[in-house]
């Protein structure tokens, strides 16, 4: 008994060491990012971790000095796009997954197989063709075009919310239908109110996606810095020519981009975990 206890304590010490070590690894880059965003000295790298000159100039210039890097505009662009994507993508994902989960129709299986098949093609193999389609619709160099590209394939992300809808008992629908509700009413009045976790998850994922998206915005907005999103814009600050002067400003920008995402994420973490966990095991 005594031996057992001693062994447990010994094991816990090992586990704590592991956790502390790994936590340091995980947190170090973020701590570094925040430190650098307050650094007054120029240059990409210093030989020390904590800045010698502390300043908020990087943040002030980030938002006010728009001569080369119009961060304000990029931030607004990204915010607008992500709001639109959050609304449209959630609507598409939820209606697709509801239809595939709770309705029965002839094309259901074929449609699910088609989506499975389409998912096996590399996502942006279609990049070139999508670009030309948008060009024909005169939607390149426009935020509307970007929203369309982000949301057009949303139906393919139905898996997680379908998994959730699958777990809701069928008797809910049946009871409501006996009371004379049609399927539309069942969806809006019965199922959606029960699906709060998965709705929050879907909106959260859709809203955060445009903040880090690089590929399509670089394709669509090529050379038009007025239409950049934050990922594309911030990258301009750390190119070989700019990084010496603007690296600290990049860090400030990165903090400003991460902050709303991080806050949202921590507030809604519970839903996110439920969504990811449910999606992984289904």
């Amino acid at each position, binding site marked *: 008994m005594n031996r057992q206890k001693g062994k447990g304590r010994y094991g*816990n010490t090992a*586990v704590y060491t592991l956790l502390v070590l790994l936590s340091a690894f*995980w*947190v170090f*880059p*973020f701590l*570094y*990012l925040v430190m650098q965003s307050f650094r007054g000295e120029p240059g*990409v*790298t*210093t030989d020390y971790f904590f800045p010698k000159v502390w300043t908020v100039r990087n943040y002030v210039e980030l938002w006010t000095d728009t001569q080369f890097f119009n961060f304000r505009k990029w931030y607004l662009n990204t915010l607008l796009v992500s709001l639109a994507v959050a609304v449209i993508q959630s609507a598409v994902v939820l*209606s*697709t997954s509801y*239809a595939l989960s709770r*309705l029965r*129709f002839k094309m*259901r299986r074929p*449609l699910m*197989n088609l989506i499975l098949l*389409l*998912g*096996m*093609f*590399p*996502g942006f*193999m*279609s*990049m*070139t*063709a999508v670009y030309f389609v948008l060009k*024909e619709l005169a939607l390149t160099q426009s935020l509307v075009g970007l929203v369309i590209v982000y*949301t*057009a*394939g949303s*139906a*393919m992300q139905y898996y997680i919310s379908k998994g959730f809808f*699958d*777990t809701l008992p*069928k008797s809910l629908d049946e009871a409501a239908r006996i009371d004379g509700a049609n*399927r*539309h*009413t069942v969806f809006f009045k019965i199922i959606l109110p029960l699906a709060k976790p998965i709705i929050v998850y879907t909106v959260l994922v859709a809203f955060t996606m445009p903040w*880090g998206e*690089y*590929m399509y915005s670089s394709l669509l907005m090529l050379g038009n810095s007025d239409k950049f999103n934050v*990922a594309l814009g911030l990258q301009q600050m750390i190119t070989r020519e700019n990084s010496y002067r603007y690296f600290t400003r990049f860090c400030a920008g*990165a903090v400003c981009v*991460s902050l709303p*995402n*991080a806050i949202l*994420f*921590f507030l809604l*973490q519970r839903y*996110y*975990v439920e969504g990811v*966990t449910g*999606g*992984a*095991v*289904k």
Partner: protein
Amino acid sequence: MQTEIKKAGSGVLRGAGKLVDALRTGDFRTRLSFLIMGFGLFTRRQFARGFLLLLCQIAFLLYFAFAGLSNLSRLTTLGSVASKEVYDEALGIFVYKYFDNSLLILLYSVLTILFALVFVYLWYKGVLAARAAQAVEESGKRLKSAKEDLRALLDEEYHKTLLALPVLGLTVFTVLPILFMVLIAFTNFDVAHKPPKELFTWVGWENFKALLSGTAIAGGSKFAHTFKEVLLWNIVWAVSATLSNYFLGMLLAIAINKKGIRFKKFWRSVFVTTIAVPQFVSLMLLSKMLADTGVVNRLLLGAGLLSKAIPFLSDGNLARVTVILVNLWVGVPYTVLICTGILMNIPADLYEAARIDGAGPIVAYFKITLPYMLHITTPYLISQFIANFNNFNVIFLLTGGDPLVLDYAFAGRTDLLITWLYKLTFNESNYKIAAVISIFVFLVVGTVSLIVYNLTNAVKNEEEFG
């Protein structure tokens, strides 16, 4: 797959049978519906449905006459004259004018074929609806009004309402582009054949041969060698990235979940921070931090732990290790989240029983935890494998595929197929090879998923919840 084709074939036969039947037993209004869509419906007072069908027919025929046909007729050659100087009477000078654009010809041809398929389907449905309407009328019953049709769209036909927009988006921005790119793989669309200035045309399997057996092709002769090397690394990367993530994530989750460990929520939050910060931020930052003169090297050098900077990202082999490690840093928090939830679901009495039987923690892990986790998370592992196989962000934002290799065709040591094809498209305008690579990626990913899906029956079990 074969059964699917057989099913589709018999479906078409059955459909044709129904059409013949409608032609034989239909009255003149049903028969005229073969020519004028919706005729049998709007002459039976089903105005909304009937005229909608007629409108579709007119729209399609107009499209076909003015855009579809001219493009489709040039599909075999993809155009004959790209551009030439023509005499402008009004200006009195020669001006440069564009004519055939192979790209648009191909794009519109694919679109026309898609439209035609939809049209044929609507036509078929329309004829059957006309026959059905006739039958209802003959039996003396009342036909549905437009209002009832609309109401059906919220009830028994509700899937049509819900899926109309998603399927439209999928068709235009996923199906059409994929079909288009598959066709591009059989053309010589590259920097020397770039519309609107130049035409491109069909070349059969030439691009595939160049990539597989190294036959010479415009744009370089190193493609076969590069393809082999990049594919090999891509597979190594996908397997090691997926497995390392999975096992380290699981280990961490077990550690946090271990009885007697305090501040569980705190530890979890620390690791989950990584998810809250957009990936591009952390990856761009890490690429700077791990550079030869980056902060990691400078701190280590300053502390006297190193005498020479570690080339984390600039040495070929080390860069490959680094990207796998950084991918761990990016991906493990997700695994921790997922595993934590599942680990708590493992019945505690299993462990209790194992302990009584004298099994230590390691045996318990291999006999209980691991089999349980593998059983539950196989679908997750597949999707992770696919995501890693095509992990654009980690490679592109961290190393950009570098360090470059001289005997590769426009690729570097850490390039995956996906970043390679991005470079080929963006920097080299080598669309034809990029298209062929895409098809190979599809084949690899498709084969792996099919095998695993068949092994786990994950798909078949889906109905159990229904």
